[in-house]
Structures are given as structure tokens and as C-alpha cells.
């Protein structure tokens, strides 16, 4: 690992000033579980590392019925995993957070960092797409809000400029009869990355089982997490049935563009998108009906 200068700003302004001064020669550090590995492997060799964990705004972690869930950029996955509000209002976020790495890794790694790394198998990506999350970022030109689908732009690429940093992830509040679910398919029970990840968020009409709205997002089957709009459309305005789920799974698999690699073939991944989409939608709808 090449040496660098370590900075630990205590305020957002200080962090922005450092980014403005050092730009592309600096790297931001939150949990460190991606960055320290990349430093070790000489994949990156910054002259400056800016540790953002000491900035109080970035540790904000709040739930509010009007504004939804705020996840500061320095909040680790473990906070989401053990939060009663997350378990109650965002079951899919709970599932995704508790699937990440190990207890140790979840104590360190952050959802914001996970989105900034923007790996195609990104753990928290699909559920954030399914919940229409957005990111609040800041830099020398001021703050801006970026919808999640515009934030991740490609494999390990984001819309974040070299002099910007993420302040927080904002997840809108769920509708009155809405719930979410996430399923990660992997070989080992723990400490593994997803072959396929499927997130679904389903909202039911008041009083019956008709689906008012649905969002489905797929992970690890395209360069970025993707939504499956045709599958979502097939659900809207219909009551859930086996026939509809069959169709939704098939349509979702068509929107996937998986690659073949050592871990799985294209056909297998597509088939799994279909199966997991059916399961995730059914589970989200079941949870929503209990509200």
C-alpha cells in the first residue's frame, strides 16, 4: 500500500474544503471495507484519504413518518440490521442489510459506501431502487439531490463528482399498505456475493388485495442494479394470483442482461430472476396485506 496523508474533518465544510483542494488525488473513507482492500491491492493510490466518520451530520440515522428513513453516509449496516423501525417499515432493507458480509463487516461497512463503490452485485442497490431512494450530496457548488437510478451510472461509476461527497441516503416513507422484500441468491449462507438479488416493494389498494403500485429491482444481472418496469406494469391494478406471478417472473427475467461467469450461467441467472421475483413479490404483498 502506498502511503498517504490521513485527514479526519470534523465538519462538512472542512470535508468540502479538503475535497476542493485535493480533488482526484483524494479518496473518501467511510467504513473502509472496500477502500482498504483497494489500497492494499494497489487498485487505487491516493495521496490523501479523507475519513468522514467524524462528521456528525453523516451519523444521522432517523425514521420519521413524513420524511421516511434518513441514513447518514457514515452509518454502518449493523445500525439498519438492529433498528426496530427498519424492520417494521422497510423489511426489505432489513433483509438486504443483514445479508451483508459478517457481523464485523456490518459494523464497519456503510450503505452509502456500498452505493459509491457501485459494484454490479452491490448489496443495498436493488432494495434502494425498489424504494425510490435518493442521495443528498454536497460539494463546492453546493448541495444537490440525486435519485438512486441516476446515481449509479455504470460498473463502479457514479454521478458523484471528484469533489463531492454523499451526506445521506433518503428513503421515502412506505404507503399505508405497502411493504418490501429482498432475496439474495448465493452459494454460501454467509460471506458471499449475490448471483442474483431481487427486491420488490408492493403497495395494495385500501381494503382489498388489488395491487396499487409495485416496484421491482434486480441486482447482479446488469452493469448496475436495474428496475423491471414491464414486470411492475403487469402487477399494477391486478389482484395477486399464481398466473400473474408466473407472468411477472417471466417478464422480469426478460429485462435481465446477466453475464456468464465462474459462478453461474446466463440461463441459470435468468431462471433465478424469474423464481426470485415471484417469491419477493409474493412476500412483499403478504406483508403489505398485514398492515
Amino acid at each position, binding site marked *: 500500500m502506498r502511503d*498517504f496523508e*490521513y485527514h479526519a474533518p470534523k465538519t462538512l465544510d472542512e470535508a468540502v474544503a479538503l475535497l476542493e483542494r485535493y480533488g482526484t488525488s483524494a479518496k473518501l473513507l467511510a467504513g473502509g471495507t472496500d477502500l482498504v482492500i483497494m*489500497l492494499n491491492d494497489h487498485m487505487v493510490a491516493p495521496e490523501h484519504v479523507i475519513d468522514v466518520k467524524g462528521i456528525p451530520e453523516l451519523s444521522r440515522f432517523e425514521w420519521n413518518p413524513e420524511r421516511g428513513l434518513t441514513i447518514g453516509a457514515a452509518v454502518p449496516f449493523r445500525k439498519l440490521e438492529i433498528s426496530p423501525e427498519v424492520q417494521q417499515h422497510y423489511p426489505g432493507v432489513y433483509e438486504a442489510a443483514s445479508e451483508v458480509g459478517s457481523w464485523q463487516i456490518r459494523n464497519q461497512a456503510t450503505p452509502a459506501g456500498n452505493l459509491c463503490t457501485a459494484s454490479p452485485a452491490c448489496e443495498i442497490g436493488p432494495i434502494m431502487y425498489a424504494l425510490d431512494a435518493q442521495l443528498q450530496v454536497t460539494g463546492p457548488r453546493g448541495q444537490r439531490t440525486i435519485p438512486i437510478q441516476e446515481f449509479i451510472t455504470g460498473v463502479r461509476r457514479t454521478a458523484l463528482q471528484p469533489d463531492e461527497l454523499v451526506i445521506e441516503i433518503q428513503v421515502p416513507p412506505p404507503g399505508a399498505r405497502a411493504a418490501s422484500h429482498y432475496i439474495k441468491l448465493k452459494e454460501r449462507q*454467509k460471506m458471499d456475493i449475490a448471483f442474483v438479488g431481487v427486491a420488490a416493494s408492493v403497495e395494495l389498494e385500501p381494503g382489498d388485495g388489488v395491487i396499487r403500485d409495485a416496484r421491482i429491482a434486480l441486482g447482479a444481472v446488469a452493469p448496475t442494479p436495474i428496475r423491471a418496469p414491464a414486470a411492475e406494469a403487469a402487477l399494477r391494478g391486478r389482484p395477486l394470483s399464481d398466473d400473474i406471478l408466473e407472468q411477472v417472473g417471466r417478464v422480469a427475467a426478460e429485462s435481465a442482461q446477466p453475464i456468464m461467469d465462474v459462478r453461474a450461467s446466463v440461463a441459470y441467472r435468468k431462471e433465478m430472476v424469474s423464481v426470485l421475483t415471484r417469491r419477493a413479490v409474493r412476500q412483499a404483498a403478504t406483508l403489505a396485506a398485514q398492515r
Partner: protein
Amino acid sequence: MRTLIELTVNGQPYPIDVEGRTRLLDALREKCFLTGAKEGCSTGDCGACTVLLDGQPVTSCLVLASSAAGKEITTIEGVSAGEVLHPVQQAFMSAGGLQCGICTPGMILTSIALLNENRNPTRDQIRFGLQGNLCRCTGYGKIVDAVEVAAKDMATRENGHHMEVKTEPDTNPAMAGPAQADATGGQAPGEKGR
């Protein structure tokens, strides 16, 4: 760039000079001379380097030393009360929850953190807690046994049934094997038929 930082390890201050890139694992081993935390993978996968940071387990191979300044760091060296072993250490010995011992400091620290949060974990909860601690000697069954033994022991102590901590290295079955093997140069009991 070298800077002076102060780490608080096992309640003791350690003023040390580090580089920006110095990892907590290296600072502990090479600057504080606390070699209990082991380097296995350096990628956060094995848990051999586990230490507690403000009571929570982290992989010290992925933490920069400078990031850990100002936090309470607990390493395996800090869990016993002098010569008196921590109940989890005692249980790993009595249940035979180790073979080569490389994973053991990490296993014990994660187990202590687990029992601090959940005094009476199920076997599944123990497995879930230890998901980031790999043992290449494959002693998982006995490791889970050890955590169960420790949980019972700690519950008994809290209920005041026996306050005294017993360490009986001479009669402990986990210690008898190697000692005898050394003395005779032959096979340790229990290794027969392997």
C-alpha cells in the same frame, strides 16, 4: 506521512507513531507489541484479526490505525483478569473449541461481544454471530459448544452460585493432551486412530 496518535488498548494508552496507511492490525502487532490479533486474509473474510472497537467486533485488517484513535480497543490480551481467564477463554479450553489456535483470539472476542448482547443465545444465533470468523481446523461444532458452556457459566456466576473463577491447567482435559505428548514424545490421548 508519519504522525503521532494515541490508541487506547485494553484500557491502556499507547502513544505510537504511524503512517497514514498503517492498519490497526499492524499498529497493534508491530507498535503496541500485542500479537494476539492474527493476520489471515487481509480482506475482511476470515476474522482472525478481529478486535473489539467500543465493544463491537471489527476486522482490524480493514481499519486504519488513525481511525481507531479515541476509541476503546479490546484485544485478546485484555480479556482475562491477570492470570484469571475470562469465562469464554475457559470454556474454549474445557470444550476443546480450538486446534491450532490461529482463529481463537478472534473467535473469543466475537463470542464475548455476542454474549454481552445476548446472554442466552441459541446454537443458530451463535453460528450467526460467528459467521465472520473462519476456522480452518474445522472445529465449529466444539466452538459453538464452547460458547454455550460460557453462556451457562456466566449465567451461573451472575446468579452468584459460584463467584470464584477456577483455573486448573493441570487437570484441564484440553491441556492434558499436549503436555503428555511432550513428555512422552508419543501420541496424545484422544489422537488415537486418527
